[in-house]
């Protein structure tokens, strides 16, 4: 089933022409060249992202050899979507921490975030989040119980009983024995620090030639660094999307299957966000013009190399608990 689909997608991608002329403001789509420019800008602004070449046999010839896709690794994901409190106040605080040199993003990021939700509703995606999300906060006791259930008993596995034989180590007083113990720092009375095993994700962005948009892929590990199953991954995706637009497919540049947010709606949503941001930008530009004559209207408009930063903000409404870097800092 999966393989038939993949063949079909492969052929469809092969047949669709490579987008040459920039239409990102009109359609929300970008060309491979624009994808590269936006990727370079992302890597420059958020250096935890990196370009990769991927499998040699899977290279796309419309992308440079070393810039086939973007990746950021080991992104912490503290809690499941259903545990997240989802309020407008949260969005506000988030915005305040993003004040950077590029004032336009700082000013509009909040509105963009809100817009995405509005747009999601316009698009007919019913916003179930507020209904389904109860105000569960991370409960340590429960988490621990769950972890114990998750740990496979090594003794249950035949052949494993005596694998540790022959290896012995003296107790070493200079080794921190159990790092998961809560430990007070030596000098202050603040909250104690502890090592918490959390889920982590490797996040990929590829260029989807058929939809002419970026596409996000997720590969997750559980608290004990075991790969997540697709069902577990769905726990970290906003319920609206998990049911409709997330699929498990083969990575276009690697030999692995992983969850991907399907890009069929990306262009539409991106177009709306960019339009909103441009409107806000012009309003702000007019305001600035009254104060000083030094700004020009071009600066108030979204540039195509900022596309991926905006895209990642959009995606963070789909995977709100995966804390990848998309902030523009000084």
């Amino acid at each position, binding site marked *: 089933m999966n*393989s038939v689909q993949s063949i079909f997608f492969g052929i469809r991608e092969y047949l669709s022409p490579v987008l040459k002329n920039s239409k990102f403001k009109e359609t929300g789509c970008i060309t491979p060249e624009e994808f590269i420019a936006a990727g370079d800008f992302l890597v420059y602004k958020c250096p935890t992202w990196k370009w990769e070449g991927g499998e040699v046999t899977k290279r796309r010839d419309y992308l440079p050899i070393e810039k086939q896709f973007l990746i950021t690794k080991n992104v912490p994901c503290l809690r499941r979507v259903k545990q997240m409190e989802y309020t407008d106040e949260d969005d506000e605080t988030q915005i305040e921490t993003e004040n950077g040199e590029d004032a336009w993003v700082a000013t509009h990021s909040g509105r963009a975030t809100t817009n995405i939700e509005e747009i999601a509703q316009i698009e007919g995606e019913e916003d179930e989040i507020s209904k389904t999300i109860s105000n569960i906060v991370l409960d340590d006791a429960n988490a621990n119980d769950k972890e114990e259930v998750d740990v496979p008993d090594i003794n249950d596995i035949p*052949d*494993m009983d005596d*694998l540790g034989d022959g290896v012995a180590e003296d107790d070493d*007083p*200079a080794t921190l024995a159990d*790092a998961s113990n809560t430990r007070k720092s030596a000098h202050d009375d603040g909250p104690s620090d*502890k090592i918490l095993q959390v889920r982590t994700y490797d996040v990929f962005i590829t260029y989807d030639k058929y939809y002419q948009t970026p596409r996000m892929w997720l590969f997750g590990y559980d608290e004990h660094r075991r790969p997540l*199953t697709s069902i577990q991954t769905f726990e970290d995706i906003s319920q609206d999307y998990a049911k409709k637009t997330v699929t498990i497919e083969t990575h276009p540049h690697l030999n692995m299957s992983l969850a991907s947010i399907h890009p069929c709606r990306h262009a539409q949503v991106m177009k709306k966000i960019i339009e909103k941001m441009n409107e806000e930008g012009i309003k702000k530009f007019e305001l600035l013009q009254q104060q000083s004559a030094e700004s020009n209207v071009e600066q108030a408009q979204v540039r195509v190399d900022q596309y991926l930063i905006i895209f990642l903000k959009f995606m963070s409404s789909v995977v709100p608990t995966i804390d990848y870097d998309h902030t523009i800092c000084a």
Partner: protein
Amino acid sequence: MSSNLVQFVPFSSAVEAPFWHTLSTRKIDVYKLDDTPQSILGYYSVGYSLRSQHDTEANITMPARLYLGTGAFDTDATSLPPFTYPSPGAIKNTNTIEEFKNLDKNALFRETAEQIWKDIISGAAIKDPYLLTRFILVTFADLKKYKYHYWFGFPALLTEPPWAIVNNDIKDIDEVWDNTEIKALRENYDKFRQLQSGSCTGFFLVKQLSNKEIAIGSLSEWNSFFDGCSDEERIVGFADPSGLPSNPGWPLRNLLVLLKRHWNVHKIKVICYREIPSKKDIINSRILTIEIPDTTTIPDECPKAVGWEKNLSGKLSPRTVDLAHMMDPIKLSDTSV
């Protein structure tokens, strides 16, 4: 007294799933029945804490992880993720579960520790300090069931008596230095990282200059860099995979042995360099002074070493990962596109 001892945070292994896929392919296509140890390259990043949003909760610290990625077999440090540090290792993949069971793991661990010791004595670890983080990985790949049994060893050479924290005093970097100095440290270390090869960037020398400048040097510059400095003015820094406030990470242990062996250092100020790369924030970094009695000598033979990773139940035993649920689709995908 024992509360003064430095307690180091051991590495927690973190193997990326594609690594196992690559191991399977190489086992079938390249190694076949050859089970001699192969060089691999792991990596680690610095530790950090996530501030709790609720006052009642503890701050959350990520474990000190040592990662093995897809590129581990290429042993090419330039392919590692940004803001990470290479760690050289060897993988011994046995052909059967019995061989895995009966393998003289102590001997392998000992060999690895002795290699670290040799690199310290010869000075190779001064030129390429990442040799201090050498590790060993023993595996058995059950290719039919997509099951992998594995065990990491991260040898740390022991000093007798162990290192102690002077005055039991570990401070946040901003308790010791002001913002100008912290910024100078961050910027100059950034430059250092860009100029040096990956094998050097995890360990470095620091000194305060007049006018709040901070200079960064490589271990190989020790004599010229600290020329004219008093013992108190000498600072070593290391990229610290630990994020815990009172506990430096594992890589510091072998560095201290090297410092003692080559420059007879028995008391030194240490910067545990920790950063949040996306925020250009090194506020989690810690400063401490550690010492051993100045009568301590390090013998000519390789000291004892510890560092087998414990399993999830805290026992000295291997771990197992079952990838059946994802390896089958991988096979499918290979033939489909």
